[in-house]
């Protein structure tokens, strides 16, 4: 148990350490309002991370999610301005995301270009394509019912958080207990073995990219409805945040190993650091350095323990 979940444990230790310091120095951190705002602010990262876990579990990576996020945000606004009710506009944006994911997925799965190459290409192409057509303009004059899905602010926040929670719990359960979940692990561990076991690894890879696209669309919608305007440059750097959260959460970058629970802890740690430093009164100038230090410390912690525990496994030193 301890061996299997050592990354999760070191994450929990890190988070508890930060929380303990906060409890002593800045108890205001634990007010309901602050917790709610923090959760909502990290919602896009969390939802995209749910898709990214699957992609990384199959041994692939998707660095185009930031660009997809921007396009889906703009798409939400454009659909809403065409007169679609907000939920429908949101579904439309998810479809746009799924479409972009399917282009990535097809290129990776069937043309067999490495995923980092494909998504690097779509990252720059989609981002610059969006800049080209919008010329940087924001989507403004959204219909009055757009904000908060036409509900009250509190209701909308509950809906969003509820959807994210259902997704997270559902995927956590499904990954372990459904055939559709286990094939993801099988494909990531060994595509050839998976194939011999009757799984179509390419279809699995294609599917996880499509799902990630759709989830990115959903994240964009959840974020868009909190405001009155939609900027066309959203999501810059989102891919790094999401990948950092996933790999810090213990998902092996080489595929086949990792859990949704670990990812949630990763999102939690990275999401807490920034505001926590503000609450502790650190200068904004040193914040990035401290953030980087904490990430390195958190991931080094379990590695040091492994080394002292058992003889290091040389092959695992060089993941693909």
């Amino acid at each position, binding site marked *: 148990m301890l061996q299997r979940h050592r990354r999760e444990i070191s994450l929990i230790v890190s988070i508890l350490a930060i929380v303990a310091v906060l409890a002593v120095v800045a108890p205001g951190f634990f007010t309901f309002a602050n917790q709610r705002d923090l959760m909502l602010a990290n919602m896009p990262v969390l939802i995209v991370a749910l898709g990214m876990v699957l992609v990384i579990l199959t041994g692939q990576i998707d660095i185009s999610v930031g660009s997809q996020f921007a396009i889906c945000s703009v798409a939400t606004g454009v659909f809403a301005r065409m007169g679609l009710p907000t939920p429908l506009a949101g579904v439309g944006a998810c479809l746009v995301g799924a479409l972009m994911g399917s282009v990535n997925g*097809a290129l990776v799965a069937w043309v067999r270009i490495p995923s980092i190459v494909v998504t690097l290409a779509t990252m720059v192409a989609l981002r610059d*394509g969006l800049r080209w057509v919008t010329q940087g303009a924001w989507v403004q004059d959204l219909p009055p019912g757009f904000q908060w899905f036409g509900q009250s602010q509190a209701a909308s926040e509950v809906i969003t958080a509820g959807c994210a929670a259902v997704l997270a719990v559902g995927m956590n359960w499904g990954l372990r207990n459904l055939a559709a979940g286990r094939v993801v692990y099988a494909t990531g561990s060994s595509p050839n073995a998976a194939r011999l076991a009757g799984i179509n690894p390419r279809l699995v890879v294609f599917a996880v990219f499509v799902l990630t696209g759709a989830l990115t669309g959903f994240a964009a919608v959840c974020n868009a409805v909190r405001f009155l305007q939609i900027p066309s440059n959203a999501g810059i750097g989102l891919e790094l945040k999401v990948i950092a959260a996933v790999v810090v959460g213990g998902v092996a970058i080489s595929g086949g190993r990792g859990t949704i629970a670990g990812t949630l802890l990763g999102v939690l740690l990275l999401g807490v650091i920034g505001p926590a430093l503000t609450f502790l009164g650190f200068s904004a100038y*040193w914040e990035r*350095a401290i953030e980087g230090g904490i990430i*390195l410390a958190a991931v080094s912690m379990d590695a040091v323990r492994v080394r002292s525990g058992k003889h290091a496994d040389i092959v695992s030193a060089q993941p693909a």
Partner: protein
Amino acid sequence: MRTSLALNQRRPWREICFPNGEWVLALALAVEIAIFARIGENFFTLSNFFEVVRLSVELGLLALAMTPIMITGGIDLSVGSIMGLSAVVFGVLWRDGGWPIAAAAGAALLLGCLAGLLNAVLITKLNLPPLIVTLGSLSLFRGIAEGITKGAENYSGFPAGFLRLGQGYIGGVVPVQFSFLLAAIGAYWVLLHRSAIGRTLYAVGFSPGGARYAGIPVQRRVALLYFLSGAVASVAAVIYVAHLGQAKSDAGTGYELAAITAVVLGGTSVFGGRGTVWGTVLGLFAISVLQNGLRLAALPSEMTGVLTGVVLVLTIGLGRLRGRARSNQATIDEADAMKNSQLAILCCAVVGGSLIVAGTNIWLVRSLRPADGVLATTAARTLAKPGKRPVVAMMPKSKGDPYFISCRAGAEEAAKEAGVDLIWDGPTGLDAAKQNEVVEGWITRGVDAIAVSVENSAGISTVLRKARARGIKVVTWDADAAPDARDYFINQATPEGIGFTLVDEGARLLGGKGEFAIITGPLSAANQNAWMEFMHQRVAAQYPEMKLAAMRPSDDDRDKAFAETQTILKVYPKVKLIVTISAPAVPGSAEAVQQAGRKDVFVIGLSLPNLCKRYVHDGVVQAVVLWNTKDLGYLTVYTAALLVEGRTGKDSLQAGRLGTVEVRGSQVILGKPFIFNKGNIDQYDF
């Protein structure tokens, strides 16, 4: 997979020259050159060739160092941040420490080595995946650089002898820094393709376990590469400083992705075991020629990203098809390889899918355009050959910023009235190096006038002087360069005026006392830092009872400004005024205050009326300070046009619909900053 290691069979010449399928890329590069030689102005010249080379040296160094790392199956995302840290340390030691240039450069190099060593130790001693380690050190190194300089410190004024390293030419033709790139290419070529160590690197990439059983010290080899990568990145940093004439914490931001793009474009496998130095060099130039060519052909620079993506997928995709067709390895993967016909159908499907995505995009935005009043004058207008009309090239600090987009509206209007052609191009984010690159491109192309909103005065002045020496008229707008580097500066408002106006307005709202907070753009933004400087001065001198509680960055991102404002409201409950000095960030701050229901908190800032109208009417935002951005763009282009025709007056000029505009010395004065509030904001549309 084949490599250059299969030695004992006769190989056709193509495989000897292009062992890794680089011919696809070489072909793409040749096609690029052929196309741009036709449509670009002054593209196919020796001086432009060296210009392209000169501008790709720093990136080239990083890409070369990245190549063997990726061949062993690793990755180094921290190279751009190491550049930033080395540049800053170099500047600190030289200016504040009083060290001689050579010693400071040596220390920067040492620091790069140390940074590389840290990566190496974490990766090899702790067995952590390189992606995670370098993702963490990416933040760490950049963060230390920002911490040391407080984001704002900008080291410049380096001696001319040092600047020659990045700006001079050997024999008047060959750029000095080219020699560094050549040396690095040579060194890495020997390391990878002509040394025993190089062969072991391929072995490690194929199978680290196998390599270890073959007696290769895997950990040491891998560690060496990350160490070298840190060292090379710091060399790149010193060249970058010499090239731009400034050392700042944002040096090399985003270079890691550009370097990785060059490497994978060059055919290096991200799974390790495959790749050549030759391919990386081709990849590097495929990208820089594309950027340069688009600029010289005055095509929209957004095409760079789109085309880079297409070239990337095509070259790697074709390379894989070839590899599959010729390979006879009986792996399971090959056993179910698709027939060509299936593959063709699939390719069509993928291309079709991309077209749908592109199509929906264009359609989406078309539907949004007329109502938003976005200018529909992009490709069609800039594509037109200049003919006899004068060409005015105008550069914002950042193309995506709504502030500059609204300036452009006025610029287009003036271009039409004054009968000139307007080229509008610039970096997509704040990026001093990119600004220099764009101006260099315009000089090569031979435009009639250049108008720049300057990000880094020291760095761009050298290039602007070069432009003036070639007879190009130079105007600066929004932010100034050195006075001798331009003909006129279109002065919309001094940093002093902006800082003081903001503080005065805030003090009026607060009644002269209380706590306030500032939300700025990126920490390293030059304009914002100058405004804050004057804000501090004004508060200290005039309002001793006002106190700055916190200053937070928004990175010009609305959502980040929103989150930062929420946190400030909770951490500093006594803050009654938020001053947000970044155009896209003001709506974020306003939304945060509105959602928190804090009716007692005022928001003021620097933004566009259109972005803030709703919040001003809701009573969340009390005042937005700005000048008329449309008029600023209009006046800039009009002044440039008058300059080209030689019709500028001494004390005033006749600028179309603006009438007579005052000229003070070499400054054209637009007028005072406006304060937009509930009463007047509806009269403005920009």
